[in-house]
Structures are given as C-alpha cells and as structure tokens.
C-alpha cells in the first residue's frame, strides 16, 4: 500500500536534510534499543540494552519492571518476553535463534514530565511538533508549562539467516515505525529505506521521521511522512541506523497531563550492498 507513496517520496526524500547533529540545549531525549549485536549467531545470548539520549548517543537505562508495558521478541513465528534483572543494565537478554530476522519491541507504561513553557516549545520544535505549538497558541496555553505523559515505543531488528515478513507487520505499539521491506536483507535495494509511521494502527501524515548513523551520528537525515504515513530515506552507508519519530496528542480528560507524547524508534543494521548481478569485483 505505501510503496507507491514512498516511491513518490523517494526522490525528494533522497535529498532531505543531511545536517550535522546539533548538541543543542534542548532536552528532548530519544529512546532506543541497543542490543549487544545486531547479527547474532543461532543459539547465542544477546543482551538488550535500552538507551536514552540524543543523536544516537545516550545513557544506558536499567530495567524497571513497573515502567514496562511490553518487552518482547518475535522470532521464527513466535513471541516471547525479553527477560532481565530488575534495576540492571542490560535491561534484558534473549537467546537468538538465528533463523529469520527477529523483531524486539519495547513499550513503556508512560511517565509524567512537566517543562516550563519556553523549554516545552523548544523541545516541540526540536522534534518537529510545530502544530502542537500552534494548537497551544490557539488554546491560549503558550504561557502554561507543558504537562505531558511520555511513552516509549522502541523496536530493533536482529539480522537472521533469512528475512522475515514480521518486520513489515506492526507489532501493535501505539506509535510505530514499520519498514516496507526487511532492511537487514542483503539482497534488498540498500540505498533506500521505505516505511510507514502508524499511530493507533493507522497511518500518520506529516510526522517528522529522522535517521541517524551509529558510527557517525553527524550523518543525519530527516523527512516527513506523506498522507499515507509513508516515508523514505536514502541511507548512504552500511551500518547501524536509528530511525525515530515523535507524535503528540491531547491527553484524554481522564489524564492528569495535558498532552501525551509517543516516541517511536527502530534500530537495525543495514548490510553492505551486494554488487548487482553481473557486476565485476573491482579487485
């Protein structure tokens, strides 16, 4: 469904912002999964680290059971919980089967945060949520502190011996980045990552989606999802990538916060591109 939209997006998206990562004062912290390896051999133990930080540089976050809504791995057609030790980093570990690409998913129970008005708006700008600034202005709330409840929805892909259709299916997170094809597939076109952002299982238009390269976080791309929630990136280098997006919605009247923010991330290792069939090895 999104492939046509993504294809339309592809050309301009390839030219999207490639800027030096800014180490600015804003305090919007991303959240992602950092396993001990992205390509585990069958039967090996993989530790699953959680990270909070900026520009793909962050602090380890220990396991905190009360803060976990869901922490699972889908591999070879089944889903198991990711186990771990309370208050310890790495937050979890699992036994890799190594068959098809494994999908690790983490969802937090949400936590409150309150920021002074100016700081709240800085952070909204930083994560591309300018419409919320406008909404606050229309509601006469610009001078009010930002009271929100933030939820983390992180996914990671562990490369297996073969690709998995599970990668292209939502795992059911409230806000989720879903690739159109398995990006760990060495046979897939390597220079473009296409996917969708889904909020409440529906495509979300206009969301800022960003990508960072682990080995050099100054390599940074950004684009916005189209009407079908589709986005596309040119990822020029093999390596570990973080794709992330933040969405915000008005909290329900039963919430003690005014806003709810949803932080989606996807980490994976993009393999080196295979030479096209018939191409000669330059060596």
């Amino acid at each position, binding site marked *: 469904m999104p492939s046509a939209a993504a294809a339309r997006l592809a050309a301009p998206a390839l030219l999207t912002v490639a800027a030096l990562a800014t180490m600015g004062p804003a305090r919007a912290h991303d*959240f992602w999964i950092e396993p001990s390896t992205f390509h585990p051999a069958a039967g090996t133990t993989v530790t699953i680290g959680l990270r909070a930080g*900026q520009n793909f540089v962050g602090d380890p*976050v220990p396991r905190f059971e009360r803060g976990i809504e869901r922490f699972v791995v889908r591999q070879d057609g089944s889903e198991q919980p990711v186990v771990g*030790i309370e208050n*310890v*980093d790495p937050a979890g570990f699992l036994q890799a089967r190594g068959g098809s690409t494994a999908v690790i998913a983490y969802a937090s129970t949400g936590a409150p*945060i309150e920021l002074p008005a100016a700081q709240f708006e800085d952070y909204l700008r930083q994560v591309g949520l300018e419409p919320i600034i406008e909404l606050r202005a229309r509601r006469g709330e610009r001078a009010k502190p930002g009271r929100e409840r933030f939820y983390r929805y992180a996914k990671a892909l562990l490369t297996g011996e073969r690709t998995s259709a599970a990668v292209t299916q939502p795992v059911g997170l409230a806000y989720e980045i879903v690739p159109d094809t398995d990006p760990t597939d060495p046979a897939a076109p390597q220079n473009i990552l296409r996917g969708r952002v889904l909020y409440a299982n529906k495509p979300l238009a206009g969301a800022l989606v960003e990508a960072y390269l682990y080995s050099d976080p*100054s390599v940074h791309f950004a684009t916005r999802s189209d009407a079908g929630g589709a986005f596309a990136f040119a990822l020029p280098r093999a390596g570990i990538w973080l794709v992330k997006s933040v969405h915000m919605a008005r909290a329900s009247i039963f919430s003690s916060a005014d806003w709810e923010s949803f932080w989606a991330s996807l980490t994976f290792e993009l393999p080196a591109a295979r030479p096209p069939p018939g191409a000669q090895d330059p060596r």
Partner: protein
Amino acid sequence: MKRLLLVALLLLPGAARGHEIGTTQVRLAMQRDGTWSALITTGPQALANKLEVKTRQPRSSDLDAAALRARLEQLIDPLAEEIDVRFDGAASPARAAIDTLELPPDITLPSFVVLRATGAIPPQAHTVTWRYRLAYATYSLTFTASDQGSPLTLWLEGDAATEPLSVAVSATPPTRLEIVWQYLQLGFLHIIPEGLDHILFVLGIFLLTTKLRPILIQVTAFTVAHSITLGLTMYGIVSLSPRIVEPMISLSIVYVAVENIVTATLTPWRPALVFAFGLLHGMGFADVLRELGLPRNEFIPALVSFNVGIELAQLTVIAAAYLSVAMWWRDKPWYRARIVIPGSALIAAIGLLWTVQRIAGF
C-alpha cells in the same frame, strides 16, 4: 517555604519528574585539605562512545576490559572538560582518572567504571555547583560538605547543574517533628490564604444555618471525604484529571451556595453531597501536595500533618465567620435576608465564574 520545598524534593526520588533514571551515580565531596573529589560511576562503553562522538573519533565496540581501559585513558582529558565544578560561579578545572573498571566476561552482568575527578577549592569559597555534561538520563548526586556532615542526595536531569550548595556546611536533614510542622503549615497555607475556592466552600457550609449540629455534620462529612481521596490519590490508588476535578470543585461551591438560598435547613441529601464534594476537594489537595512532593521516609507523617493543617484552616474559617458575623447577628430576623442570601449569592456567582473559567481554560 523554599527550603521546605527543596528538602521535600531532595528526599523523594519520585519527585525527579523527568526522563528515565540511568545507571550513573556521582558522589561529590568537599575535603578539608582544600580540594574537592567526585566519584562518578557509569557505564564504561557508553562513556567511551560519548567521548568518541564528542572528539569525532570512530566509535569503539566489543572491547575487552584492558582495551576499554586504554580507550578511556586516551579520552580522559576530554572527559575532565565535561565535569563542570564551580565555586561562587568560577570554574575549578578537574583532573580525572580511572579508579575501577569492571567488565564481566558474562555479558548479561552489568559493567561499570568508577572515575575519580579532583580539583581545588578556592580559599573563602562559599558555594559550589556541579554539572556533568556527559549525562542524558536522570542520575543521583550525593554531596558531602567539608564539615563531613550528613550527605545530601539530589536527582539531576541529564546535564543540568545543581543549585549552589554550601561548601562548608552540610544541609541537615529535617527531623520528623520539623517535617510534621512544615507540612502542617503547608496544609494550612493551602487554605488560608491560597485556597479561596475551598474557603468559599466552607463558608457555603457555614452559611446554611447558625445551628452547630448541621455545621458539624457537614464539616465532618467533608473532612472524612477529602481525607480519603487525599490519601488514595497520593498512594496512586485513584486518579482524576484536574481538568475534571477543578471545574467540579467550582460547581460544588455553586451548589452549596444556591441550596443555602433555597433552604435554611439541613436536607437529608446535603451531607451526602458535601461528602461527594469532599472527595473532589481531596483530589484537588492531592494535586497540590504532589507538586510539593512528600519525603519518602516520612510519607505518612507528612501526609497526615498536611491534612491536619487543612482541617485547622477550615476550622479557622468557620471560627472567623462565626466570630465576625454569626455571634452578633444570628438571632436577628434579618440575618438570613441580609447575610445568608446575599453572601450565598455572591459565593454562587464567584463559583459559577470559576467553573466557566476552568472549563474554558482547560
């Protein structure tokens, strides 16, 4: 008041309402020999990666203990630059060294590095601030002043700096009695003078009648109810958005005031309604108390004394109303026409205005 709030926040990790708590811990101590020292415990690989990105070097990974130690030693100067200790606003350059590095072969076990940073305390320095620019998640800082008194624990959000701390004198943790007294004052002050809406509600209860028994029944119902929801809300058992609670509190004021105009007797349903309204007011009190924070190790004494402070303030409102109005004119034939009805009408109008404002404001 500011000191009280600070103490409350310092004692309560839950009050650090920010991002996730990470694995970093810092112990900062002022020494009597004119130096300061900081022990920073943190994740070693993440630390190396942060410094590698900062110095634009390739990120390392999968290093063994010896290689990781060597890597961190190479990066020790850039690391020291990220430790920002200031005395009376002037920076005190830090020297850093690796104290301990634990990297268990079993990757499921936690690894950590302990860094020792030191620097000089300028003569006559009064205050010190701490900032560690390599932190993203929330972490704890334990501070010991040069008098070697009780350490103070602060929760810092990422690379935020502390408020100025006294170099020489430890912040003495408050005793239970001090906490009780402080929260009693907070509870009282939340009603008088800060809680005009609660004052009007209590006046609404008072204006119904000059007889003691109906007033006592209502005040008791209100007190029991708000005590229940204050406790349950603070323990996280019940929760209702201020967007609902605050307009409902205003509406409760309108109701009691309008009923005062309609009737001068205690209707059978009035205590039940006052009880229900009390449940809402208790949630409103809890919102305030949550913002103030409750010390974890003195949770119940602080909660109870805050509630007692509220009760004392309510009784003060009723006593003041009685002494200034009812005691003199309650037997006058015009008491109801000239005091109760105009007073209640004014209270109802204010309550209605607040209701509209609170609904529109939310």
